């Protein structure tokens, strides 16, 4: 029998705190779509996605209506496309990108991820053609997201690929100059990229996955923030310790995750597709009150970036994982707190006031998912500096056996402090200053690999 107080706690969560399921992402294996020529492959890709996802959006809407919980985004992730298009040239990959975009539009999904490659140890000729195709592929499509894994704890960092990626990010921004370099917001660079992450831009359907799988991304920084507000006002700040706060976060995360799991399982049941994982990440949106930065401020720093921010984030990230892992049969993906600058209005404001700098963000990414995410930087920053920032972040992931990622957006023609806005879920922020620009070229010029780290003698 359900108890009244439990019912009312859940009602608060749904009614006042905008509980939603951030993303239901359908993973589709495309390895069997390779045809003799590019056009044949494109046709098969569109056909497979069309068949697999025919009832996907409709089913998500149906389940969402039944349970009264919105599913904000319906997404598709596919096998990293460099494997699907093995042997294709740059133009072939652009054609594949266009086919994926058409398939995503036909299926009615919001976004499609998996225009990706895995080059953490070495690059094939195909991988190089794929990388060369990224700027045009993303400029000519609307729903497509790209990602590349260039480092792992097992293989080290591929510095040849890294050097190319710095330039790719610049080219992406330049080719989409009229949209303030928005192309770069659809491309993310990974260390230890998971194959079952439902969040964009880094969602892929990993090679280790089954033919079709359904992953769910639950979020809810707003729910956590309101729960903490309520706890503090009910019991008084002076009567609480940080362990009480951690416990509240854990319990709230449990409830949020359960809702996501329920929706995901019902959708997969209706569609007859295997249910994969729940990714229980705190992913902020630009909506007021849906911010990870706000949680940090509630927990005691007057502004994000002040000393203490990293420690608070570490506790938050860990409490989220603990609550979520008990709530779900299978947890995967990224699972932690995100700190994407443009998508979080409190973080963006901290950048604007100068409280939050790139170096502090980098430190914070050591203790949370995912990395330097959605950060607008001056368009004048050179490719080698971008590569070197990425290298630092990859090193954090490699050494600490965690996923890290970088999504920097060099805004063409704009400088630090200028405001940039992409609208919708992509948000807005003042441009973050980058210090020591142009001082890392000799490092990037080496190329080769940073060898895989030792996995014992850890101190």
């Amino acid at each position, binding site marked *: 029998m*359900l108890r009244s107080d439990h019912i009312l706690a859940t009602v608060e969560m749904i009614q006042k705190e905008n509980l939603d399921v951030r993303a239901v992402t359908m993973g589709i294996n495309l390895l069997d779509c390779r045809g003799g020529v590019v056009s044949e492959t494109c046709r098969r890709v569109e056909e497979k996605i069309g068949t697999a996802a025919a009832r996907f959006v409709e089913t998500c809407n149906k389940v969402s209506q039944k349970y009264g*919980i919105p599913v904000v985004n319906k997404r598709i992730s596919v096998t990293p496309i460099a494997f699907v298009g093995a042997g294709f040239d740059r133009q072939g990959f652009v054609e594949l990108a266009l086919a994926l975009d058409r398939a995503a539009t036909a299926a009615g999904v919001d976004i499609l991820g998996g225009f990706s490659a895995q080059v953490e140890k070495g690059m094939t000729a195909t991988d190089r053609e794929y990388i060369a195709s990224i700027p045009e592929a993303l400029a000519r499509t609307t729903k497509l997201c790209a990602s590349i894994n260039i480092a792992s704890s097992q293989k080290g960092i591929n510095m040849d690929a890294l050097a190319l990626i710095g330039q790719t990010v610049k080219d992406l921004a330049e080719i989409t100059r009229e949209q303030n370099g928005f192309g770069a917001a659809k491309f993310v660079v990974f260390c230890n990229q998971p194959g079952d992450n439902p969040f964009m831009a880094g969602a892929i359907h990993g090679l280790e996955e089954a033919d079709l799988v359904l992953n769910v991304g639950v979020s809810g920084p707003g729910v956590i923030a309101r729960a903490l507000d309520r706890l503090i006002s009910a019991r008084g700040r002076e009567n609480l310790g940080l362990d009480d706060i951690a416990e509240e976060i854990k319990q709230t995360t*449990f409830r949020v995750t*359960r*809702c996501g799991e329920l929706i995901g399982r019902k959708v997969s049941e209706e569609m007859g597709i295997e249910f994969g994982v729940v990714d229980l990440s705190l992913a902020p949106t630009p909506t007021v009150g849906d911010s990870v930065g706000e949680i940090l401020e509630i927990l005691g720093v007057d502004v994000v970036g002040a000393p203490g921010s990293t420690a608070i984030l570490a506790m938050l990230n860990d409490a989220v994982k603990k609550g979520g892992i008990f709530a779900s049969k299978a947890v995967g993906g990224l699972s932690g707190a995100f700190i994407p600058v443009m998508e979080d209005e409190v973080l963006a404001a901290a950048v604007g006031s100068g409280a939050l700098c790139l170096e502090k963000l980098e430190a914070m990414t050591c203790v949370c998912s995912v990395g330097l995410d959605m950060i607008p930087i001056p368009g004048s920053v050179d490719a080698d500096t971008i590569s070197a920032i990425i290298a630092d972040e990859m090193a954090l992931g490699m050494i600490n056996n965690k996923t890290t990622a970088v999504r920097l957006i060099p805004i063409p023609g704009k400088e630090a402090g200028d405001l940039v806005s992409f609208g919708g879920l992509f948000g807005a922020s003042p441009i973050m200053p980058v210090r020591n620009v142009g001082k890392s070229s000799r490092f990037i010029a080496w190329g080769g690999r940073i060898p895989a780290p030792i996995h014992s003698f850890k101190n």
Partner: protein
Amino acid sequence: MGKQMVMSVMSKDRPGIVADITGVIYKLQGDLADLNQSVLCDYFTMILIATFEDSVTPEDVVAAFSHIPSETRLEVVVKEMKIPMEIAKAKRSPETYILTAQGKNKSGLVHRISLFCYQHGINILDLATTLSGDQYTMILQLDFSAVESVDDIRSSLTSCAEEAGLSVVLQHEDIFKATSEITLF
């Protein structure tokens, strides 16, 4: 198979009352099935189902209850069940929704919501309300098996509740199970 009876008991609350009631049933060699009891402001009420031998009549049961001492006389109603319990239970709908309605207290709120349910073919399975200060809270478990469109109910419910000054949330029972129970699937 025996004779299934449903019994309702109401009295002033005191320690030992459940032991007394179940003791009567035990003495009559009755086999207790489902039971639900509640205490509201010092008044005790219980509804229970038990199976007796064919020779036991509802009047026998009422007579046995009358010997139980109580500050106020025990109000007892006993009926023989027409439909066996298993069949009645099987009718329970998988489409159970939970409706919560909260607002400033005034008379007629429960009537308004229950009338709405009746007019839309919704059966109320369970209802609990509390008054705290001037804030009135209702929690209803509703059988939606005869409802065609949950969306239509939602929108007409919202306008009905607005007129009554209530804020309502209507959610499938599964959501509450998911957030409040450890075992889900």
